[in-house]
């Protein structure tokens, strides 16, 4: 479903702030796989996700989504294949627009937007049902502005928006990091359900090792712009946090202590 071939990205090349974010990164994600991504700060996790989403051009390498070469495709065109939830709850919704209007915008991802009315009656009924499934009571507030929602509600709404038109790939960029633990757990539960119900291929960055182990079908660990650990299937199911930390320390070398603290 997703193929990253020899992906390279350097920020501020040729300056003192030069930062190699992706160093010849290769990844092949099969259809229906749910990948969790961990790694210390600056390991290249978000850079990888943003490169896939098309937020910036990569320096070298290829990005293929379901066989389509999207390496040079602008972000808004790539969006036809991709659903996204950001780390910052403010990023995923239009705050001055109504909840149902936000959903209607998302329902037209990848479609031509013409002079038809922006939202239909049938759509509203569908959104009512979908919002009800979230279990947050948002279905009663469909004409409220998204800006009035709490962080957790916004992330749940953004998740719904990302999956409303089934994407080939769902990108979750530490989407629970800004939430309190109880809300984060609820949003993760909703994420799991939406991924499972729609059979989505998904990449989720997290800084929580336990979440990375308990969610998804495959786990990768990144360091200095490379994948240093790739665990799937039965091996992932048996994985413990202790074991993961040990393996990380062994692989990452000198930085291990600081990064291990950051990761826990």
């Amino acid at each position, binding site marked *: 479903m997703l193929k990253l071939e020899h992906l390279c990205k350097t920020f501020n090349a040729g300056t003192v702030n030069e930062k190699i974010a992706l160093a010849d990164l290769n990844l092949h994600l099969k259809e229906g796989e749910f990948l969790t991504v961990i790694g210390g700060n600056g390991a290249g996790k978000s850079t990888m996700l943003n490169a896939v*989403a098309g937020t910036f051009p990569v320096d070298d390498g290829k990005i293929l989504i379901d066989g389509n070469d999207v390496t040079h495709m*602008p*972000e*808004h*065109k790539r*969006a*036809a294949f*991709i659903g*996204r939830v*950001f780390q910052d709850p*403010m*990023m*995923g*919704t*239009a*705050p*001055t*627009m109504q909840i149902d*209007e936000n959903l*209607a*915008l*998302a329902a*037209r*991802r*990848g*479609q031509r*937007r*013409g*002079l*038809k*009315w*922006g*939202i239909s009656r049938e759509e509203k009924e569908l959104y009512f049902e979908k919002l009800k499934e979230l279990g*947050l009571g948002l279905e009663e507030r469909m004409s409220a502005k998204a800006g009035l929602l*709490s962080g*957790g*509600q916004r992330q749940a709404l953004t998740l719904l*928006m990302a999956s409303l038109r089934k994407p080939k790939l769902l990108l979750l960029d530490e989407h629970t990091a800004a939430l*309190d633990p*109880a*809300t984060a757990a*609820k949003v993760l539960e909703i994420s799991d359900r939406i991924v499972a119900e729609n059979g989505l291929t998904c990449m989720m960055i997290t800084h929580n090792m336990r979440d990375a182990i308990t969610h998804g079908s495959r786990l990768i660990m990144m360091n200095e712009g490379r994948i240093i650990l790739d665990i799937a299937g039965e091996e992932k199911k048996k994985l413990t946090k202790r074991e993961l930390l040990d393996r990380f320390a062994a692989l990452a070398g000198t930085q291990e202590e600081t990064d291990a603290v950051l990761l826990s």
Partner: protein
Amino acid sequence: MFFTSLLNSLPGAIAQGLIWGIMAIGVYLTFRILDVADLTVDGTLAAGGATAVMLIRAGVDHRLALLIAFAAGLLCGLITGLLHTRCGIPAILAGILTQLALYSVNLRIMGSKANQALSVDKYKLTLSQRFVRELSLRNPLFLLMLLSVIVIGVLYWFFGTEKGSSIRATGANPAMARAQGIDTNANVVLGLMLSNGLVAFSGALLAQYQGSADVNMGRGGIVIGLAAVIIGEVIFGKVFINFALKLLAVAIGAIIYYIVLQLVLQLGLNTNDLKLLTSLVVALFLAVPYWQSKIRPRRAKEAKAGEGGRAC
């Protein structure tokens, strides 16, 4: 004496307010919907006026001249939009560049003259100041009210469509808009075009109304537009939630602005000081919400602490 002269000047003030109201609606589109302060409009207003006056003088039908002026405005917006999105120039600077360029262009349009007259005696016009106190259908107030309603109606429809909604999303949250597959650059250009089209249309009406086009007729236009937007929001912000009503509030804001202007002029304010006064008023009204936001979070926090906070 004071009240009779004020009353006498009232129809003129309302007509001016209605004309500038259409311009202010254009400013609202960029300033509030796209979240861009577009300074092109000062030049666009004059471009609209100049285009209409020169066309009518050349024998073109006044209605067609209005439409061509609108198209000229679209072009002004297109240039600012391309400078901003294709050349990476910050929106404010892109607007200033186009505005400055338009000064020369407008002089060219007007045959290298700073001012061109358009007498209602010689040409058939859409509207004229001369009939503003007349009780007949050629009184410009009727036509202007009708035009304002049409403009508001069309915009209400457009911004409810899929395309219009995507423009609103572009202004509200560009990152989200792109993630939802919206070409934000194209939408910014389209929004700027639409806004400037309305401004030029307003300029064409203004030039016919006052019987002349002047290369400086748009000077400070953006500030007057903002004043109308802000007055409308301050007075009707709490009651007018619907989009059409918000646009109506802008139009009424422009009328109030011109009535207040007449009032302070009657009270003896020097005409030369008007622009200073306008700037002060706009600066003050833009500053107040900022000051409030500095004070309010503290209060909101205290309120939340008392409530105990709710999860999710």
